[in-house]
């Protein structure tokens, strides 16, 4: 029964790994490719903009791990406390919806919302006596726009897994806690959260694997000339240098660099998680 699935992963996920050798080659459309060793990596690392791009990626990914990752957990915990089933259904549907919108649409919504002349946010700011802020061209605020728009888009959808984990907790544990006189907060703290720790650990480890992928689609749609220096990430750099100009070997070198870092982060997080919680991804 597992054969089709394994075959799928073998063909589409493992066979292409072989082509990562392109990172060490000069690609020739008329074969054969020429082996150039680490030249593509040297070109990548010697680019004057590479370290700024890497720093942006680390900062944005770090902000997302810190501020985006916990939100679905909190949403799931809060939803679990809503006792009215209909109300919970409505809230769930409402917060899942943004997940189905593309970043083009979401960026359009945020650009309109944050417009310094007629955007709702700046109008509220002005009504409260503050000046206007161009959040999308301000290098200090644009990363927060990425974080907040990411939360808005994914918090509801990502809370599904945690909600499923919460529903899988043995009700007897809650009953025992009630008999011991636990408050709702104490039940969350001592029953619910420990019950979903394995799910949190697994998702955290998987997120670490994607640490250097700060979401190409999102950044491209929010990027402009002013904020580019603050949100130009590895993926946008690879896209611009690699795909747009046909430097496929350079793009592959950058992709391989990302993959190796991601692999190291996954293994490290797995080992740390094993030690702290006894749970890992394998």
């Amino acid at each position, binding site marked *: 029964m597992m054969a089709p699935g394994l075959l799928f992963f073998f063909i589409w996920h493992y066979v292409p790994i072989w082509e990562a050798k392109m990172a060490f080659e000069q*690609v*020739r*459309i*008329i074969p054969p490719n020429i082996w150039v060793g680490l030249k593509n990596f040297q*070109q990548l690392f*010697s*680019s*004057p*903009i*590479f370290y700024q791009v890497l720093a942006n990626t680390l900062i944005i990914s770090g902000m997302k791990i810190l501020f985006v990752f916990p939100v679905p957990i909190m949403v799931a915990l809060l939803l679990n406390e809503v006792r009215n089933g209909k109300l919970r259904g409505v809230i769930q549907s409402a917060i899942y919806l943004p997940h189905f919108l593309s970043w083009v649409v979401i960026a359009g919504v945020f*650009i309109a919302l944050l*417009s*310094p*002349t007629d955007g709702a946010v700046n109008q509220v700011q002005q009504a409260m006596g503050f000046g206007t802020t*161009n959040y*999308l*061209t*301000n*290098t200090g605020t644009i990363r927060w726009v990425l974080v907040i728009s990411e939360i808005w888009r994914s918090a509801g959808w990502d809370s599904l897994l945690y909600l499923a984990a919460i529903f899988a907790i043995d009700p007897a544990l809650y009953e025992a806690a009630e008999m011991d006189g636990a408050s709702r907060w104490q039940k969350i703290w001592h029953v619910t959260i420990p019950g979903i720790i394995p799910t949190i650990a697994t998702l955290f480890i998987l997120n670490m694997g994607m640490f250097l992928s700060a979401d190409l689609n999102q950044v491209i749609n929010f990027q*402009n*000339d*002013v904020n*580019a*220096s603050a949100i*130009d990430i590895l993926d946008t750099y690879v896209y*611009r*240098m690699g*795909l*747009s*100009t*046909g*430097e*496929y070997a350079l793009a592959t070198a950058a992709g391989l660099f990302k993959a190796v870092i991601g692999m190291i982060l996954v293994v490290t997080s797995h080992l740390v998680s094993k030690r702290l919680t006894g749970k890992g991804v394998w």
Partner: protein
Amino acid sequence: MTLKKLLLATTAIATLGALAAPAFAQTTIRLVSKDLLTTNPDDVKEIEAIEAALKAQGHDIDIQTIDLPGGTSAYVDALGVMLLSGDIPDIIYFQGGDQKMAEQGILEDLNPWIEKSEHIKAALWPHNVERLANYPYLLYVYPPRAPQPVMRQDWLDQLGLAAPTTVEEYEALFQAIHDADLDGDGTPGNTLGLTGFGNTTELDSVFNQAFGITGTWMKNADGAWVNARVTDAEKAKIEFYARLAEKGLYDREYVTNTFDVKEDKFYTGKAGVIFGSSPEVIDIYAGKMRQAHPGENIELALLPVPSGPGGQGLAAVDVSKEARGWAMSSLSEHKEEAFAVLDFMASKEGQDIDRMGFADVHHTVGADGAVTFTDQISTWYARFFNAANWTPPTALLSPTAQSALDTIKADFTADNAFVWPADYAADVDAAEQVYRSWVARFITGEASLDQWDTFVSEYNAAGGQRMAEYAATVLGD
């Protein structure tokens, strides 16, 4: 015996037929372009019309178009992957990414073909000739892209001003638009003089020369080549843009505007002046403006290229290479036929098809042979070329758009930009990022022009210095 004879006769006929077949066979060529898809009935019909016309001229060619994802970015990505995988059509339309393919030797040098062409040679624009001399792999027979400013003629009349001819008069016009309540919403002072989108390229088209920016590379006081972007002339131009933005005359949100937002601000009266990227686009703007204001029969006025402290003229045209255009595969087994298609599209008959659409749909032909364009012509666009030597039987452009085209024809100056070797790709990218970022910050007020020297240092450190050193070797003394 009879059977034997019959078999022999059949075999002989079959052999003769097989030997003769190539002489009469149809040649199939493969063509890929983002604007020619099998899913678009107009594209299919145009290809059929081209095939029929070629056949009448003795070229029996079956043109098979290859569908790639729409949208410029998706097309460029998909085309690159397709070519990299070894699938190389006979005729390829590039919109970026061609240089890498040319370096790999898969693109044909078009110059020998053009030299012996029947039609293309005469159809080229002056900048095409120079670009082909520098980079012979792409062919894009179109006038140079030179954005020019337009505004509503009735607004200009209401202001009682003559069309501006100097930088100062432009500023005065923007101020007048801003101060008057031309959109009639009862609130003067809420209309932008000028809007744009993304970056300042459109504005640079008419203001570069006015501020003395004569080309990509200029000589400094020491006689050394420097990028125009770090010159005093550039600083003066950016100061002008920043002043317009500070006074509320130029849209400070231009950076986040998309092209449709820019247009929307124009049609809804939130901005008085916008730039049309080509004469055809100016006519599209006029059409959309009339749609937005039915019954008002609004015409657009083309604003002249202003003079300024540094001179006057449209920005110098980059002739280092075509930025987009048609290429032929050097590996094609049907180069003659592939070039015949391109050459035909530059001929009068090819241009008639490509520029005027279909009879009884996009135009009608009267009993006396007079051509009248229908409203449907506004939905038609040329898929191949806009030949310099083709004249429509009836005016295809409005007087405003024609005037824009005349300006482009009369005001051509070649730039001294050149094609960068692949080793400089990272420097060019980094320096471009620094430039665009600082310019936008200067204009939006996030950075002060007092920080100009910081910008110059950052630009040079990001690759500008290395680029200038290389430029000196290319441009010489």
